[in-house]
């Protein structure tokens, strides 16, 4: 499979291999978790057969790493038991299996109980779309944001992921990190400052605002560049916090640009678009409004870049949506 087919390859590195040709690249998730374990006595890391990403951590701090095997639901509940005993467990899991399969454990054992479990749902969205529809995680925002007490964040690139991991360490309740990794673009030159419940404005504009999350953010920035050449000034906001949601930023965007497009690598049901629509409706704000996400139908299967292209989570696709919004 691909030009590096002779090398043994952990599943989670498949896109790194195929798309970037950088074999064995240590991921920032593993690096950051190692740093956290070394900085704090209360951090432990658990995984359900996703340990390759934390290989250095498990070799250097074997007592602080718990492999639970291919048993995601048990992993979440075990983490809850550790959290109830004074630890801050980070569960490294795959979006589709970790998050969706474990919705009930997240709700009952982690969220109802207000425990400081951190749930790192890697390879979310379409990142594992090559493997089949079972591997899509396109309902996870809807599930996670409906769970009381659960903080839901989604980085748009490596630096924002690191910033979110670091800035939430001391949050007393549970945190769900939706990490896609289906795209590889860079949004931030420097690590952005994160404030709980606040979006991060990444580009100013006056004609429309694109509120995007995850890999939607670099797509929106690319679209803004394209549209700039056509004389449209499009603001781009990174919805890093999906819960609590930055209602002020949404209403500000409605007032200042009068047109909002949401972009997400998630179903159009219950995701960022739905969340923004709820805020607008409650406030009786009525800007031009459009939700751009994955259709509520059987999705195609393929490499993530091809799927993002297919569903228009690209600069061209988002630019088309903005033109449609402003038409």
């Amino acid at each position, binding site marked *: 499979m691909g030009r590096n087919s002779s090398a043994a390859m952990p599943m989670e590195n498949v896109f790194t291999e195929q798309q970037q040709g950088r074999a064995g690249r240590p991921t920032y998730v593993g690096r950051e978790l190692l740093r956290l374990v070394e900085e704090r006595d209360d951090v432990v890391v658990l995984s359900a057969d996703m340990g390759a990403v934390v290989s250095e951590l498990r070799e250097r701090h074997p007592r602080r790493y718990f492999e639970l095997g291919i*048993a995601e639901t048990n992993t979440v*509940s*075990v983490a809850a*038991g550790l*959290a109830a005993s004074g630890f801050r467990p980070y569960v490294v899991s795959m979006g589709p299996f970790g998050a969706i399969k474990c919705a009930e454990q997240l709700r009952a*054992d982690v969220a*109802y*109980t207000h425990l400081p479990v951190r749930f790192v749902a890697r390879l979310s969205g379409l990142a594992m779309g090559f493997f089949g529809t079972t591997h899509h995680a396109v309902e996870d925002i809807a599930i996670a944001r409906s769970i009381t007490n659960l903080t839901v964040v989604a980085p748009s690139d490596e630096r924002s992921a690191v910033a979110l991991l670091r800035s939430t360490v001391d949050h007393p309740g549970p945190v769900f990190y939706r990490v896609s990794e289906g795209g590889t673009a860079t949004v931030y030159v420097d690590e952005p400052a994160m404030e709980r419940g606040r979006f991060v404005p990444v580009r100013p504009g006056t004609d429309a605002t694109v509120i995007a999350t995850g890999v939607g953010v670099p797509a929106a920035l690319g679209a803004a560049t394209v549209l700039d050449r056509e004389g449209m000034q499009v603001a781009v906001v990174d919805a890093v916090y999906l819960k609590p949601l930055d209602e002020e930023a949404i209403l500000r965007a409605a007032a200042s640009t009068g047109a909002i497009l949401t972009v997400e690598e998630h179903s159009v049901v219950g995701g960022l678009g739905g969340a923004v629509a709820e805020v607008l409706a409650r406030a009786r704000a009525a800007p031009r409004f459009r939700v751009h996400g994955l259709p509520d139908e059987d999705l195609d299967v393929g490499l993530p870049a091809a799927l993002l292209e297919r569903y228009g989570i690209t600069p061209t696709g988002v630019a088309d949506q903005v033109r449609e919004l402003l038409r």
Partner: protein
Amino acid sequence: MTGPAVLERGRPVDLDDLRRRADWVRLRTIQLIDLAGLGHYSSTFSCAEILAALYYHGLRLRPDEPEWPDRDRFLLGKGHAAVGLWPILADLGYFPGDWLERFGQPGSPLNDHPNMRTAPGIDFSSGSLGHNLSVGVGMGLAARLQDRDYRTFVLTGDGELQEGQVWEAVMAASHYRLGNVVAIVDANGFSGGGPTSHAMNIEPIAARFEAFGWLTAEVDGHDVAALVDVLDELPSPRSDVPTCVVARTRKGRGVAMMERTPQAWHLGLLTPEQRDEALREIEARLVSLPPRGGGLGGEE
């Protein structure tokens, strides 16, 4: 300066007092359900002796300090039996006895299933069957990391063993050599819809746990002497094999009409006449045993 009083493991207890305590749990259960208007009788009655043996003999506790790090943990996996736990926790001083009067009412800290956020003395919430043994494994791992010798007890129903997550936890406990984890199965032979093994066979329970690397003991779950013995003989919490106690029990134990039709009393509300008859039956047994030590109204 001395700290709050510790109730040590294996503290002396008169076996007749334990028997009376179990019947007192049944009596209080009927009274609390009567106040609330709904509740789980027969599943609570099957584990009354188990709860009595744990809280009045086996567990190391410090009721004045419910979060004391070295306390033994008790997780009520079969959370629907919480109505039997509330009078015990009140009696031991975890919260005032008058909290019981609002059991099951909106805003009450004491619900049909236990909530660790609202009720002192509850080490973990439950309500969704099959989760608590996993949580107990997490607590067992935490004890290892903190070099503490507390035990984590998890009381499950036999029907709860049909949940797949239980067996993920059973695997994990032996994999991580958690001799500090003790599962007690209240094997009353019934789940919500009928005889447990008619729905899905879970026998032989002990052999299944043994196949997963656990030590097992099988006892009559209404024989307080046997329960005391099995708690006294548990391997050290620093040992490396978890223990499963299969307690053979009778659903509805202690009230004749519930023993006859245990399924009918899984969830319900006795009529005033049935309630009075059940209370008379239990009170007759309590009178027949000599009173010792503190009275039974200790939570008042």
